[in-house]
């Protein structure tokens, strides 16, 4: 039986779980070329998961490494599909291609003043403190006293926690050095986590909220919601929502210390304007009511009443968003590659032979690391069904022919050996400072280490 040659584009959780699925199929032999835009794999597990969540990052060593280091898989890092190699070419070089490129954009608030310095996407700030090479030089100014994070999902809580955590604790993590420097001179004393709806609709998960019970030197306050179950809602709130309210009640009833930093969970507020002269200085916030819509879902409706908060740092954490991959049909409403169950389809609905997608760029930017495992299985099931019916791209080039073309297009591509050298270097520097690793945060340093091995 013919060996299937597959290109997987993106070495984050989505791509790695897709490879797991492919390698596990008994129906055919497979060879995988794994393309990644950075010299390092792991996507948001490396650049998104918070530095103080080291347990979650074990998924790389205890799960994804089995795929990355499988002899059937070849890592091709520091190469941008769409720029160095066209989408159409990849379809010619391989039997099948799976796009798992995730999300490089974010949802904007659409506010006057949103582009003032000091207002940025949570995505950018997270990438900054996690040492993503494209964001390491971001001019981050923490000289103000108050930061506002807009949105209250897990990313918003990560940011609030990192801004409030004592430096001594952060120094033990894999947070980027330049972020430690910025945080050491931070004047931020209060972080407001602002959400449109009420506490019963909060987007963060219980484990993330509970972390604030163990954060030293931080007081927690709640504004805009009295945490009393709204009339008529008795027994209808989910178990998860009730737990969140119980935890919030415990957090706000702890004795306060004026020397502590403050985290304020503010509910029922929508930003309407950012003002400032050369950088952001104030946010005007509309006060909301909750009204059920036609489907009975409670929606936030702004009233005429507004108030103002001084803030020198505003981070929008209202969602990541996919950006178009040149050469692939894009659904601009959902922010995903147009697809049905992972089969990439044209605007008219016709499937592109041999082209698939998985992860956030397939289903939207929701879910946690393991959500991608279920998603990848669905995509690979479709791919395998199509392969069995003789539907695919190609005919594929062999490994060496591809290598010659890759080396031509991107002479500085990074192999598995190159990544492992980067990994060893980071862990070894880490050991000297009693940290799990000290990340390299610019491409040229990474390439220097990769090439020296």
């Amino acid at each position: 039986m013919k060996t299937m040659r597959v290109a997987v584009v993106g070495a984050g959780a989505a791509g790695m779980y897709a490879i797991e699925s492919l390698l596990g199929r008994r129906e055919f032999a497979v060879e995988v070329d794994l393309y990644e835009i950075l010299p390092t794999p792991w996507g948001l597990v490396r650049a998104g998961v918070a530095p103080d969540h080291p347990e979650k990052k074990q998924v790389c060593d205890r799960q994804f490494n089995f795929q990355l280091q499988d002899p059937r898989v070849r890592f091709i890092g520091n190469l941008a599909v769409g720029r160095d190699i066209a989408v159409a070419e990849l379809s010619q070089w391989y039997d099948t291609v799976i796009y798992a490129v995730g999300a490089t954009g974010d949802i904007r608030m659409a506010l006057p003043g949103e582009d003032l310095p000091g207002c940025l996407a949570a995505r950018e700030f997270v990438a900054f403190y996690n040492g993503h090479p494209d964001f390491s030089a971001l001019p981050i100014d923490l000289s103000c006293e108050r930061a506002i994070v807009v949105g209250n999902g897990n990313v918003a809580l990560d940011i609030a926690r990192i801004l409030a955590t004592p430096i001594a604790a952060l120094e033990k993590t894999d947070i980027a050095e330049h972020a430690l420097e910025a945080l050491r001179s931070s004047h931020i004393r209060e972080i407001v986590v602002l959400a449109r709806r009420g506490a019963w609709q909060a987007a963060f998960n219980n484990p993330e909220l509970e972390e604030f019970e163990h954060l030293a030197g931080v007081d927690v306050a709640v504004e805009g919601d009295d945490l009393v179950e709204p009339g008529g809602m008795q027994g209808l709130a989910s178990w998860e929502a009730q737990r969140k309210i119980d935890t919030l009640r415990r957090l706000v009833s702890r004795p306060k210390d004026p020397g502590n930093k403050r985290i304020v969970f503010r509910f029922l507020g929508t930003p309407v304007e950012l003002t400032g002269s050369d950088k952001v200085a104030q946010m005007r916030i509309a006060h909301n009511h909750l009204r059920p819509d036609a489907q009975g879902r409670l929606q936030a409706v702004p009233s005429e009443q507004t108030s103002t908060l001084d803030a020198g740092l505003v981070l929008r954490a209202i969602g990541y968003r996919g950006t178009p991959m040149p050469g692939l049909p894009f659904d601009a409403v959902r922010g995903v590659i147009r697809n049905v169950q992972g089969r990439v389809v044209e605007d008219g609905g016709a499937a592109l032979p041999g082209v698939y997608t998985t992860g956030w760029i397939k289903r939207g930017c929701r879910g946690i690391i393991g959500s991608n495992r279920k998603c990848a299985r669905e995509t690979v099931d479709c791919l395998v069904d199509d392969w069995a019916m003789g539907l695919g791209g190609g005919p594929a080039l062999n490994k060496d022919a591809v290598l010659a073309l890759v080396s031509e297009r991107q002479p500085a591509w990074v192999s598995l050996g190159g990544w492992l050298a980067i990994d060893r270097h980071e862990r070894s520097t880490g050991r000297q400072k009693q940290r799990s690793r000290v990340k390299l945060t610019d491409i040229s340093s990474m390439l220097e280490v990769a090439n020296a091995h």
Partner: protein
Amino acid sequence: MAYVIAAPCVSDFSCVEICPVNAIHPGPSSAAFEAAEQLYIDPGACINCGACVEACPVSAIYEAGNLPERWKHYAEVNRQYFLQGGALA
């Protein structure tokens, strides 16, 4: 004493697949999987074989008596998930 899934869970569901008595929910075929904050072990069904501990890629699973201080309450959280009807979705 049963095993307990604590905060690091990322819903990878390797544990669900290895559990010999289907004690871990919600699995990926359940409607509740997409929105679940984490996975949970039913203390009434768990037979203490420990297979899930090694299978978990983020080391989120502990014997109830070995839970770290900050996650001790997860024994009750796992139990409560099933008491409020968690495995029925």
